């Protein structure tokens, strides 16, 4: 494998990691601060993708449709929090798992009724449809856009959490929720805000994933498992952990898929090597999770 290919695979891993970070950041905030296990996080990812696909023909511009979709997804999050989740904070995790699983079924069915069962169309905007020449490496322009958006969100979240009053409460809430409540902070509003922020981030991830992946019912569940792996590796409730976990998972997954089949080819024939490599690569992130948890049982950067 030559150097250019290795650089390209590195970029691929980075881009997948950034994508996962958009999902994981919201999930870890909700889990860490509100102590709510939200299995329906992937639902907001799906809603973000569907809304973007539906709004592009209406608004005629991808960035506008994306902005509108992210806002609408955050608003939907506010409504869902007020209607369905508020009563769950004091219940145990199993109840939350059941209730948010119910939300998945509800929203999947709703999207199927509104948009139909067949995957719908969403392509990147014309300006980002092709490839960009990076020192002789032709790289898909839209993947670079995902990378840029992910980095921008990471910076935004860092500023929000490290530099603002809301951020201070979020940090305090993640570390010691009871103490923040005891200090008389309007917890209800804080929770609503955090949940909407998480949903908006998931919606943004969905909107950015839509042009690359199939926009279809159930797309949220496919990425949810990876997202949970990310926050478990990173440590629950920590944005820094989510970033580190996401980049690690993105890299290990991509490089595993790129390098393992090649490694197996050294010792067996091509077809078997590819099948064995693919099988092992699909396990790589779980092996990574096991190794991380064996060394640091609470993840890399736990908030608690």
């Amino acid at each position, binding site marked *: 494998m030559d150097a250019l290919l290795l650089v390209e695979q590195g970029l691929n891993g980075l881009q997948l990691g950034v994508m996962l970070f958009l999902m994981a950041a919201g999930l870890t905030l909700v889990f860490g601060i509100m102590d709510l296990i939200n299995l329906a996080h992937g639902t907001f990812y799906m809603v973000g993708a569907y809304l973007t696909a539906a709004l592009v023909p209406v608004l005629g511009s991808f960035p506008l449709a994306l902005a509108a979709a992210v806002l609408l997804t955050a608003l939907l999050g506010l409504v869902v929090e007020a209607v369905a989740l508020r009563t769950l904070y004091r219940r145990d995790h199993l109840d939350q798992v059941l209730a948010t699983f119910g939300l998945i079924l509800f929203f999947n069915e709703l999207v199927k009724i509104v948009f139909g069962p067949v995957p719908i169309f969403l392509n990147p905007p014309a300006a980002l449809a092709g490839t960009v020449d990076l020192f002789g490496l032709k790289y898909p322009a839209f993947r670079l856009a995902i990378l840029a958006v992910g980095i921008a969100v990471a910076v935004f979240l860092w500023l929000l959490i490290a530099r603002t009053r809301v951020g201070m409460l979020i940090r305090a809430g993640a570390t010691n929720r009871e103490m923040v409540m005891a200090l008389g902070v309007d917890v209800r509003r804080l929770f609503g805000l955090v949940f909407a922020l998480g949903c908006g981030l998931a919606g943004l991830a969905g909107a950015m994933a839509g042009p690359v992946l199939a*926009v279809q019912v159930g797309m949220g569940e496919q990425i949810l498992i990876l997202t949970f792996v990310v926050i478990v590796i990173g440590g629950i409730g920590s944005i820094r952990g989510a970033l580190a976990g996401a980049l690690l998972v993105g890299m290990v997954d991509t490089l595993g898929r790129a390098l393992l089949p090649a490694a197996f080819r050294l010792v067996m024939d091509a077809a078997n090597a590819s099948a064995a490599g693919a099988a092992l690569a699909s396990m790589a992130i779980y092996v990574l999770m096991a190794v991380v948890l064996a060394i640091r049982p609470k993840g890399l950067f736990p908030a608690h």
Partner: protein
Amino acid sequence: MTRNLLTLASALALLATPAAADTLKIGMITTLSGPGAGLGIDIRDGFALAVEHAGGKLGGQDTQVIEADDQQKPDVAVGLANRMVERDRVQVVTGVVWSNLALAMLPTLAGGQTFFISPNAGPSQLAGAQCNPYFFNAAYQNDQIHEAVGKHVQDEGFKKVYLMAPNYPAGKDGLAGFKRYYKGEVAGEVYTQVGQLDYAAELAQLKAAAPDAVYVFYPGGMGINFIKQYEQAGLKGAVPLFGPGFSFDQDILAAVGESALGVKNSAQWSPDLDNAANKTFVADFKAKYGRIPSMYAAQGYDTALLIDTAVKAVGGNLKDKDKLRAALASAKLQSLRGEVAFNTNHYPIHDIYLREVVKGADGAVTNKTVATVFTNHADAYVKDCPMK
């Protein structure tokens, strides 16, 4: 007291219902939720349209279709197969999309002496050594579709082809089928995870291998992911892409739009096939469901036609299993794709076409038949099947 009597009366009424003689009960176990749902829904809708065209009576019998969602999970599918045999006592199970599910369900259904008529999944195992008196396939043996593109790519003179498929039975069958007719160099043979979302790593390897053509088998959502990413990686137009009809069918074309234009693919059916039954089917399907039918919808329809033909041939007698089996096996099906006969392994002998993804007159992206690659094509595994 009145209430108790009422309850008793309704309970008796419920018990009495199954006694109605010779209702044809069909279990439709298919994928109705999750990423593979588009395929199952098309099979179900195509099947329902055929039942509607037959006035609700397949083979002249009152027909009841019991739907169940296998969620694309083998364990769920086996549980449902059990339920259909034990509780619902259906005579026929159909609907299965995925080869791994079909393989898992067969022992339960065959053990319960329930006919299993696949509208899609056609794994090589069930065509060869593990063929079964209770298993029929109304659609194809998986390999047949791939063989056609293999022959086309060989005839067109491509010398260095890169192959990709998901790592599951139909994926391996597919590439084996392609290689049975393609004799040139294989620049790479890559198996990816079933349900994989991101193909960036594999596409980078593909580019580095510099093949002169690419053959991929990705059904459903995987196909959408792959085709979008293939174009975004700048490979569309640079390296010709080929695939079986599964990877470039209507369910996928609606979601990828013009990204797939010009791709040649193969199938036993195409929406533009010129026969009266097919024209009615395409028009009625569009009118009823508001979308162009896919191969899967046509296969669902053909499956119902096969049941209709066989049940008619036995005069509605569903109890004599040997007779019904003989009727299914000897059916000369006037299907949407023309005449289909069945081989000794219960798989079809039929024509396979080459299609091209084009923009139709109404602006919709769809498939156009461009050639007949095989006429009366049998599968490669029939010689291993002990049923003669």
